[in-house]
């Protein structure tokens, strides 16, 4: 017989562990504020115990061991043998993260790179430190708490958490099996809100809830079928209209027949035999026609009645179907307190996160997608928004910064606002940076409003920070976040900033991804759909309104000049041209750019159901998907970011991205200044493998001399500590030299203290990578972003 195979259960364990870990994570945060919350400790103890047991069941002994040690510590805390100290939180989090990692790699061939033994030793030390170290711990911890690390979590915050748990209750009760990607891992299963350690009642209730866990794939299949039913319903509505028309037509025939009948009856000079025969035939036809008329009319009425009844059901079906996918925003929000705590720590800032509107419901697919953009905006707010404590004190603000994340529904959209009370975006600084990077000219900057300048942060590759730090520099820029929101979520991202008072990012997304409003338009003989979210206006312009500037067609609208592009040209399809003189144009605004698309005809606006292009056509330029109209015809949905980018490429990338990159051909060139042979050769091989031309110098002076001799490079990568001329001096020399100052400088160094980073910033470096996090991808990513 088949042997019991543990690996088959690892998936189940991973699902379960996700829930437990999420609760434990939240528990630790609450515990920091209420170290004596006995009930909470009991809950956590139970979770750790479960974790221990189930991991042992599936043979993941390392997890079991770590969980066991956590349990040991918590038992002592519960029994009063040991006081809970904030320091323990760090070890707890480390342990929980380790379990997340171990659970994730379980069953795969990935080699475990974690120092499990070290962690186990540390945990044991805490547990055994127990009685004798307890007093000491408390004493030292008190000092540490104040001096060392700003905690996100404090009394207020845990209040907030508890409130959240209670107010989030109703929403959570609807979806105890709530599924979404948790921050702690890539799997989908996650904790339900009742699991919150602070609401013991919730746990009991959850158990009694009549709910089922369903694979999301099944729900999607169901929804796909529902949309087929909806389309079929639209079809039969059309048939009902056709039937009514047939009834009307038949009434006309009946009238015609009556006329014929009376005409025939009035014929007198006719053979009797024929007259009798004719009369018989006519009587027969008369009754047949009248029967058919009655039958058709009854059929039409019956069909219309049935259809209107079905219509109600189908509408309900669609609505209920869509609701199957709706989950409260709190399923995403819940992981943020922990994420914020980590972020605040790594940026050495004191920040409070306030979450509101967690019970707002959103399509699961949208929820899955908004997690990363929200985390990115949050990280951005901590890194660039909230000022250091001393700066805040000087400007009369509370030292603790506040980041507020609010979700609410507005019509058929969800709005999520992320606001910080930090320094705001300085339009002048943004402009200066944009000029330096070649996005805009000085004269363009002069004529730019502050608001327009603020939107420059959404330009491709633009970074608001004077410097790229590892945390905000790895990952993505605001441009990517915004494009993602527009392209993937069919929403929009706006920013509103007041210098000195703070910044608000406003994310507007449709309730569901499955249905959007779209403008239907025609080019050549085909219909296309353009999502209305990005359309500013549609117009039919007089040919005389279209003027030529620098060889390009533009149109003036509200004192703005909008470049015009022929959609047929971008799509590479043939166009019939518009008839009747007026030119139909759809004006689109995206990422601070405006553009008018000339089409053959504007057909109208309607709701459409989005479908993908199928499994074979994974990504098609300019096309986001298709929709199926009532008659079953398929219409391509256009992808606005693609269209804009391609239109700009055609126009010679004018006004988009650093201009120099458009003119360049051939490989990019990098100058590496580094006195260590090993590092130099390592960096050289990384860049050469990525297709760059590499030039090297042994120190700053030699590097600078090469540049002054006319060596043209796309970026300089430099060490800091070098003989003759340090990296900082080199950076300063480059940035103050008129002909070199636009060359990006990336500092790679082992110095990672803040003062040193500040010195790098002052010298004008564009990026700062510390050797401790140095790896090939970070280096290449950074360089690509700067010269992209």
């Amino acid at each position: 017989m088949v042997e019991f195979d543990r690996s088959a259960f690892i998936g189940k364990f991973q699902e379960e562990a996700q829930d437990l870990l999420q609760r434990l994570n939240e528990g630790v945060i609450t515990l920091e504020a209420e170290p004596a919350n006995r009930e909470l400790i009991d809950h956590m103890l139970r979770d750790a115990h479960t974790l221990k047991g189930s991991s042992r069941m599936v043979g993941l002994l390392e997890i079991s061991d770590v969980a066991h040690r956590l349990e040991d510590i918590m038992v002592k805390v519960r029994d009063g043998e040991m006081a809970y100290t904030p320091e323990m939180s760090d070890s707890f989090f480390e342990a929980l993260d380790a379990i997340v990692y171990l659970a994730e790699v379980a069953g795969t061939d990935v080699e475990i790179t974690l120092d499990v033994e070290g962690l186990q030793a540390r945990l044991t030390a805490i547990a055994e430190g127990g009685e004798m170290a307890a007093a000491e711990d408390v004493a030292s911890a008190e000092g540490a708490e104040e001096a060392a690390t700003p905690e996100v979590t404090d009394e207020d915050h845990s209040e907030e958490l508890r409130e959240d748990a209670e107010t989030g209750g109703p929403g959570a009760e609807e979806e105890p099996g709530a599924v979404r990607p948790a921050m702690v891992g890539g799997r989908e299963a996650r904790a339900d809100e009742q699991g919150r350690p602070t609401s013991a009642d919730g746990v009991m209730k959850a158990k009694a809830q009549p709910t089922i866990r369903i694979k999301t794939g099944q729900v999607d299949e169901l929804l796909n079928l529902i949309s087929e039913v909806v389309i079929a319903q639209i079809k039969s509505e059309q048939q009902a209209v056709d039937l009514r028309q047939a009834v009307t037509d038949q009434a006309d025939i009946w009238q015609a027949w009556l006329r014929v009948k009376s005409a025939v009856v009035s014929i007198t000079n006719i053979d009797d035999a024929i007259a009798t025969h004719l009369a018989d035939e006519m009587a027969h036809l008369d009754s047949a026609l009248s029967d058919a008329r009655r039958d058709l009319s009854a059929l039409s009425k019956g069909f219309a009645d049935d259809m209107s009844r079905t219509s109600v059901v189908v509408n309900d079906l669609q609505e209920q179907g869509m609701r199957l996918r709706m989950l409260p925003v709190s399923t995403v929000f819940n992981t943020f307190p922990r994420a914020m705590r980590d972020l605040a720590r790594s940026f050495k800032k004191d920040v409070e996160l306030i979450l509101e509107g967690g019970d707002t419901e959103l399509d699961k697919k949208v929820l899955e997608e908004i997690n990363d953009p929200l985390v990115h905006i949050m990280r951005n707010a901590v890194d660039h928004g909230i000022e250091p404590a001393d700066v805040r004190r000087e400007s009369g603000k509370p030292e603790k910064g506040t980041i507020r994340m609010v979700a609410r529904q507005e019509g058929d959209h969800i709005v999520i606002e992320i606001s910080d009370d930090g320094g705001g975006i300085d339009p002048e600084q943004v402009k200066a940076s944009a000029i330096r990077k070649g996005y805009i000219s000085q004269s363009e900057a002069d004529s730019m409003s502050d608001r327009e300048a603020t939107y420059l942060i959404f330009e491709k590759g633009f970074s608001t920070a004077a410097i790229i730090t590892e945390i905000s520099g790895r990952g993505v820029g605001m441009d990517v976040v915004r494009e993602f929101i527009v392209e993937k979520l069919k929403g929009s991202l706006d920013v509103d900033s007041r210098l000195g008072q703070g910044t608000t990012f406003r994310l507007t997304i449709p309730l569901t991804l499955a249905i959007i409003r779209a403008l239907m338009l025609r080019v050549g003989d085909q219909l296309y759909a353009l999502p209305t979210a990005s359309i500013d206006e549609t117009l039919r312009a007089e040919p005389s309104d279209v003027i030529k500037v620098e060889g390009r067609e533009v149109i003036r609208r509200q004192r703005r000049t909008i470049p015009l592009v022929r959609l047929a040209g971008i799509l590479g399809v043939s166009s019939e041209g518009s008839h009747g003189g007026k030119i139909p144009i759809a004006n689109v605004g995206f990422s601070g750019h405006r553009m008018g698309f000339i089409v053959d005809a504007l057909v109208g606006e309607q709701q459409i159901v989005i479908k993908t292009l199928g499994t074979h056509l994974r990504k098609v330029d300019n096309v986001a998907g298709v929709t199926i109209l009532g008659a079953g015809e398929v219409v391509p949905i256009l992808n606005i970011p693609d269209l804009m980018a391609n239109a700009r490429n055609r126009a010679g990338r004018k006004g988009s991205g650093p201009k120099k990159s458009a003119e360049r051909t051939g490989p990019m060139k990098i100058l590496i200044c580094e006195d260590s042979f090993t590092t130099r050769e390592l960096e050289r091989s990384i860049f050469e493998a990525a297709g760059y031309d590499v030039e090297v110098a042994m120190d700053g002076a030699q590097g600078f001399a090469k540049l002054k001799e006319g060596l043209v490079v796309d970026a300089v990568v430099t060490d800091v500590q070098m003989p003759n001329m340090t990296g900082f001096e080199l950076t300063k020399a480059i940035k103050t030299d008129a002909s070199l100052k636009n060359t990006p400088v990336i500092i790679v160094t082992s110095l990672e203290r803040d003062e040193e980073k500040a010195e790098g910033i002052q010298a004008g470096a564009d990026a700062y990578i510390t050797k401790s996090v140095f790896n090939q991808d970070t280096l290449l990513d950074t360089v690509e972003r700067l010269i992209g």
Partner: protein
Amino acid sequence: MSDERHETVDLSSVAEEILRRRAESLAAETVEESADDRMPLLLFRLGEEWYAVKVADVREIYQEYAVTSIPCVPPYIRGVVNIRGEIISVTEVATLMGLDSDGDSDAEEAPAIVIQNEEATTAMVVDEIGDIVEVPTDGVEPPLSIIDKAQADYIAGSVYVDGRLIGLFNTTTILKPIDATSA
């Protein structure tokens, strides 16, 4: 539960059977080809030539369908069709492989064979659908070395059917998802 157990038993007995047969064929290498080691192929015509796909890769066959053209796709993608709410791409294999076909690529009466693997699904436009034939599994020979380079990737091998040498399509390469990134 009982179903699963049943299946497990079946599978293991099948596996046993296979192992037993392998052992036997190893023991007597000259034993004649077992009549069970055959696979069904679906024949189809492109231009003057006949080709084949494994029946196992075929999902369904369409004689009539309405294609919607999609802009910015490779020239061998005619567009997409809506099959019961599922969107499926329509691939002109003749264009993809530089083969002859009856021409007039816009003719909508050309039949289509829907092929599928775990990764993707597409409808291949062909000129004519032929019979299903069974060939010995090991009767598939490597593709002819004189084959056109454009075709080499898409032909898995050749096989004799009624004395004719027929090219067997490689559905894996034909079904490779198209991932055009914006220029």
